[in-house]
């Protein structure tokens, strides 16, 4: 928004005067009302309770994921004989002394999986991979899709037509099918984590490209852009210093939704037997490891722990995306 622009920019004053509302969605996009939490557009600077909850969850996860090796938790591939006998956190295990204990009492707060791994540790180390895949893929999507969208929306004409056609073609293949076929192609040539990031990044390019283009189209028509041009600013400078700061909120909002989609896609690919190997913990991996126990009726907690981490993370990301959208009054395109 305007405060992120340099004060000497002629556009700043104009943008302030005009107000920052008035974004119109691209004519070919359908507004999806379904993904909103009903956060009302507001100019308030204060964040609501829900937003703080979401931020606390995400920041907590990121800190735990980074600090995992120094946290007082077990290693992700360490096996415990006590959990091998009973996995659910409150299942009873008989001790050699004749008494009983539970995995929870033994310090395994979320219980363990069938391999005797501590689930809390798997979930926190899993957060590393899930978040790397989620944010890594979207970071790539922002770079490539953002650049394409900015160029297409700013220059228009033939360049734009080619870029739009390119993005449309990428959207023509259903995302999971594209990810599946890309992993099939790259399998064995690069490490599994990179395959995932690349495949999911490619999927996110058209989504971020379209939203950036649609918003760039609108913002580059504005008076402050004309003013900057009249002052002799180069195209590149106008794109990065005048247009981009105004397009960023919309990109950011969609990027948050995108991270959520990618985290779910990682888990889905893992369930399809494609993706990270068994020694690399991820939330999808936890669910996949617990699948047999669930269908055999032994215990469902392994699947539910993995699912809960995915659910709360997606919920937080979706909610924050909505807060960003409401704050900046972004009216955007469908994914």
């Amino acid at each position: 928004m305007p405060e992120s622009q340099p004060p000497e920019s002629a556009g700043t004053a104009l943008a302030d005067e005009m107000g920052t509302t008035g974004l119109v969605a691209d004519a070919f996009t359908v507004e999806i009302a379904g993904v909103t939490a009903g956060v009302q557009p507001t100019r308030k600077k204060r964040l609501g309770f829900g937003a703080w909850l979401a931020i606390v969850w995400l920041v907590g996860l990121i800190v735990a994921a980074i600090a995992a090796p120094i946290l007082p938790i077990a290693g992700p591939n360490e096996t415990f004989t006590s959990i091998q006998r009973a996995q659910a956190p409150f299942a009873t295990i008989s001790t050699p002394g004749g008494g009983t204990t539970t995995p929870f009492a033994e310090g395994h707060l979320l219980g363990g999986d069938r391999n005797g791994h501590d689930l809390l540790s798997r979930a926190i180390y899993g957060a590393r991979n899930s978040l790397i895949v989620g944010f890594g893929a979207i970071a790539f999507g922002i770079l490539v899709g953002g650049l394409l969208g900015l160029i297409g929306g700013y220059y228009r004409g033939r360049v734009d037509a080619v870029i739009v056609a390119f993005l449309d073609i990428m959207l023509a293949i259903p995302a999971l099918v594209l990810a599946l076929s890309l992993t099939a192609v790259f399998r064995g040539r690069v490490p599994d984590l990179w395959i995932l990031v690349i495949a999911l990044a490619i999927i996110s390019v058209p989504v971020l490209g379209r939203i950036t283009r649609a918003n760039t189209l609108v913002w580059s028509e504005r008076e402050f852009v004309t003013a900057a041009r009249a002052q002799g600013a180069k195209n590149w400078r106008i794109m990065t210093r005048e247009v981009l700061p105004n397009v960023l909120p919309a990109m950011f909002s969609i990027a948050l939704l995108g991270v959520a989609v990618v985290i779910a896609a990682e888990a889905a690919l893992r369930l399809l037997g494609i993706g990270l190997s068994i020694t690399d913990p991820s939330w999808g991996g936890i669910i996949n490891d617990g699948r047999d126990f669930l269908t055999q009726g032994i215990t469902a907690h392994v699947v539910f722990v993995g699912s809960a981490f995915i659910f709360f993370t997606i919920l937080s990301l979706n909610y924050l995306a909505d807060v960003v959208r409401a704050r900046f009054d972004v009216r955007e395109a469908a994914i």
Partner: protein
Amino acid sequence: MLDALGTILGILLILVVVVGVLGVLALALGTRAGRKKLLQLIIVLLVVTFFSFSLLHLTPGDPARTQKPFATEAQLRPIRKEIGLDKPFLVQYKDWLFDFVRGDFGKDYSTNLPVKDSIGQQLGISLQLIFYAQFLALALAIPLGILAAYKAGTWFDKIGNAAAFGAIAIPPFVIAFVLIFYLAVQGGWFPTQQYVAFGTDPAEHFKHMFLPAVSLAIAQIAIYMRLLRSDMIQTLQEDFITMAKAKGLTNRRILWRHALRPSSFTLLTAAALNFGALIGGAVVIEVVFQLPGMGLGLVTAVATRQYSAVQAYVALIAVAFVLFNAMVDGVYSVLDPRIRHARVAAA
């Protein structure tokens, strides 16, 4: 082969697509914008099939070798010739595309049967699953959406919004596992694996399809409900609704007979687009429930490295998706002249 319901659904779908494409064609050739759209459609289809085709050649190793890993060089030669690997790349693509359009998708090298046979059956099963899921989603979302719009701003609406927002954040496979655990494993009411044809045993058929359909439907109920709610709130502020109220019509009649139809455009578009997307998008649910649909077929082909089958699956799913979207787009502009004029003006 296809069972009765699958065949009927398949024929219906083909009919809808054919009628849709013909309609779009008739419309497209009439206007400049339409001709441009048609040209774009053809280019997209060519590029998408080209991408599917080149998957085989992007994969590491010799495509012939992956099909017969232990064959000698001499044994591989006829396979190479059959796939056409001795010809230039673009000629190979042309040959493949011609075969693909005629419905010849190559052979499955583990069973030596044409890929077409299994795909036909799988498409029927996938279509049934999508049909049930969409039916469930619309059947629940329409009344809920109407009620939410009617009670906009009340506690019911707020709780509904929160529930919908939560439902969207749950991936379908998580819903699937929760349902499997509580309704199938603990309750014992539903089977969790395999597929039973409608013709074999209708009751068992629906029992087998229920959990997968619900897993897919939950998030869509939430989305459809929200779409209908926001359009309906706008419709309810129109003059003709005030008029209907003034005439003393009952709320039920106003909501269902007067307000629903003008509010359902966005909803129906979203539902139609979803239908196309789900042909490949139900992959995970098909795998979790071991339903032998297109998704499970694609995953099996990837896992067993049946690359000619992978090509066929990816191409079919993408082409179906593109045609479906183009059709929805075309039908939509036929139904709502505002859009047609807006697009012509924009072009």
